């Protein structure tokens, strides 16, 4: 199982990550961060689906995402 970690205080809610996630795991939350931006999150129901492909992190203009993968995680997309 893989997962994406969102640094909420960095996220500006631009949603670019949502355009590249092959599993459509990310979406806008209702939460606002300290700078007043609505931030993205991974709804609990979708957390299983993350493949750890890092696409979201690659496109994030605010370096808000880091991605972790199970050492024996499935056939996820390779990073680079």
């Amino acid at each position, binding site marked *: 199982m893989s997962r994406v970690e969102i640094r909420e205080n960095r996220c*500006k809610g631009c949603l670019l990550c949502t355009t590249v996630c092959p599993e459509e795991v990310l979406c806008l939350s209702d939460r606002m961060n300290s*700078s*007043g*931006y609505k931030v993205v999150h991974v709804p609990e129901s979708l957390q299983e689906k993350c493949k750890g492909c890092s696409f979201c992190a690659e496109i994030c203009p605010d370096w808000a995402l880091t991605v972790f993968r199970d050492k024996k995680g499935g056939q996820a997309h390779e990073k680079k």
Partner: protein
Amino acid sequence: MYQDVIIAGFGGQGVMLIGNLLAYAAMDQGLECTFMPVYGVEMRGGTANCTVVLSDEEIGSPIVYSPKSLIVMNQPSVDKFQPRLAIGGVLVANTSIIDPGILEQKRLRTFSVPANSIADKLGTAKMANMVMLGAWLEATGCLALESAQGALDRVFSKQNSRLIPLNEKALKQGAEYVRGV
């Protein structure tokens, strides 16, 4: 007659809009006025504030260090501007966002206005700024509410003119809230 106010908040809170509106209202009443915007350094998400001066005489400085009154829409603005308010100055604070505990009650004439809640009830939180201005007009009594309402069509473009009635209402509710306090 002389009055000045610093209006401060986050970038998106409509601080400049009510500053402009106030200046228009004053101008339409035949007063002298200046509107001086100061933008935060950052492009977005920074703080924004403006200073409006109203007077029946020629205005000297458009910049005021110790204003007679203050409209604050977020916490950092309280920290920055409250200490500068002259004794007995009027402080109108949006307590939907600001912790009322940090407001000085003794030195100042402080008005806590839950502007977001009031605006929410009108159906759109976006009008918290108008609620605040309405409250300030009532608190200072320096211009009639109607003059601000009457100037709304000068700050809204034609396409947005349908929003005017709601904004009138928000102004009014701000004023009423203060009157009720």
